[in-house]
């Protein structure tokens, strides 16, 4: 076998989906290539593809087997992959307002103790980070974020909460995330954003999109309430 293996791999996912794997790790640069590929695919406007689902290192295409057979689709996709070099990641820079601590972040104190930091140090570190949105999954609008400061890592709660309010900003293991909807959850809650992350009446229905890059901005209760009212009016 020659040493010029293409940096991608096709893999069927049954008879109506296929995976394009661009690598094997969790890495912002690799993930940016996934989103760039998704954008090129959208631009190409191939018929018979219902969904293209980005993840850490792959793009999953759900296609209609009446429109495509696997081999033909792979041949059609190859030029899109070969055109890859230098394509920019289409994501946006978003600053998410977060009201840390208090009733919105009931685990902030425990997290500070666990990490050997003061609460304000935790807030400073969390809102200093830059977080790539690797993909959305698990629930509508739930962002899988990279970039958490390793000093802020903390295991999940032994007892998950039966109800975590929508907008909760949380840390679970070495990851941070935002709960788009009220749901049971085991992550450590450090704050809450007034942003509505999932709203089916809006277009697009999710506020944060795959490939975006997030920062968190600490806000006070008053600003939280003002922004929450704006969200209700929007």
């Amino acid at each position, binding site marked *: 076998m020659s040493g010029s293996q293409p940096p991608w791999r096709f*893999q*069927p*996912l*049954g*008879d*109506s*989906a296929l*995976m394009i*794997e661009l690598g*094997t*790790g*969790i890495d912002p640069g690799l993930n940016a290539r996934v989103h760039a590929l*998704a954008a090129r695919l959208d631009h190409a406007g191939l018929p018979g593809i*219902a*969904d*293209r*689902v*980005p*993840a*850490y*290192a*792959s*793009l*999953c295409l*759900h296609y209609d*087997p*009446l429109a495509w*057979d*696997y*081999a033909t689709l792979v041949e059609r996709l190859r030029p899109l992959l070969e055109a890859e070099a230098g394509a920019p990641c289409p994501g946006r820079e978003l600053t998410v307002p977060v009201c840390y601590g208090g009733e919105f972040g009931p685990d902030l104190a425990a997290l500070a103790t666990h990490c050997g930091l003061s609460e304000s140090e935790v807030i400073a570190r969390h809102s200093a980070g830059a977080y790539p949105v690797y*993909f*959305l*999954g*698990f*629930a*509508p*609008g*739930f962002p*899988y974020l990279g970039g958490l400061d390793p000093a802020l890592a903390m295991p999940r709660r032994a007892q998950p909460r039966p109800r975590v309010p929508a907008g909760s900003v949380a840390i679970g293991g070495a990851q941070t995330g935002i709960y788009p*909807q009220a749901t049971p959850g085991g992550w450590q809650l450090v704050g809450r954003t007034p942003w509505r992350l*999932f709203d*089916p009446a809006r277009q*697009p*229905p*999710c506020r944060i*999109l*795959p490939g975006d890059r997030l920062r968190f901005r600490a806000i006070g209760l008053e600003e939280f309430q003002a922004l929450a009212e704006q969200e209700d009016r929007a």
Partner: protein
Amino acid sequence: MIRVEQAGLGTRIEDAGRPGWQHLGIATGGAMDPHAARAANALVGNEPGVALLEIPLAGPVLSFERGLWLALTGADLSPELDGRAVDGWRPLWCPAGSRLRFGRPSWGCRAYLAVSGGLDLPEVLGSRATDERAGIGGLEGRTLRAGDVLKSLPARLPPPEAPERPWQPDWGLAWREIYGVGEAWRLQLIPGEAWDGLEAAGQAALLDGSFRVAARADRMGLCLDGPALRLRETRERLSAGVAPGCLQLPPSGLPILLGAACQTTGGYPLLGRVASQDRPRWAQARPGDALAFELGDVATAQSAWRREERLWQMQKAELCRRYPYQR
């Protein structure tokens, strides 16, 4: 107007699902058994993908304020209209004031009830399918409750000659061959990246019907009971796209067959995915039923799917010729 007198266990509104949003973490969902759902719609003159009821095992009690055409397909849950047994896979005229109930589930797991014209509900993100996780579709994103009222759109078929009496024509759809017969549900599995890593005994157990649907089986997925499976080397799958029919292997060693409402991404090792053609079979498998996988390949599965689609188009054309005065 359809009155829900008793809701049954998890009766819900479905359609062909909500494709196009999976990149936002929104599941496609839709009918677990799309074949039965489109057959029910076709029997009452509806377009495919019109909203209907999906009824798992324990059916509701429904009363009809005005006469309407409906069709029941999928599982046989012993339906009775005003106390008299009625047939599935044939149109059924329900006169004004009649009441439909279900009895013993005698075959399969999910029945579909289509009303001529379809259920009148708002579309959310392009679909009326119920998605509890997102809280959207159907009736406010939930299953039916006693006291709910469902409206239907104008019927696609005219009433029969004697609309005051229940009536079924003598034609319908042949359906047994979709599901196959035998002691186990036979499912073609297109192998995934973890299949070759499975120990030989584990592969054999999946192929010889040693796995049964566990009690924990719902639209998210069917947990399977059998000998715990082990991979020769533990390799995590980096979270990536998954789909209905995927056979995942969680650390317990007991595989999960993902259902219509599965998440959009998953990180368990992937043993394979069941061919689209066989989806009606696992959709109708009940807790306790045995599943026997057969290794398939993409090209064969895709040509079988195309053949089946052609066959269905012919059946549907035949059906359309039967409708007396379709509007």
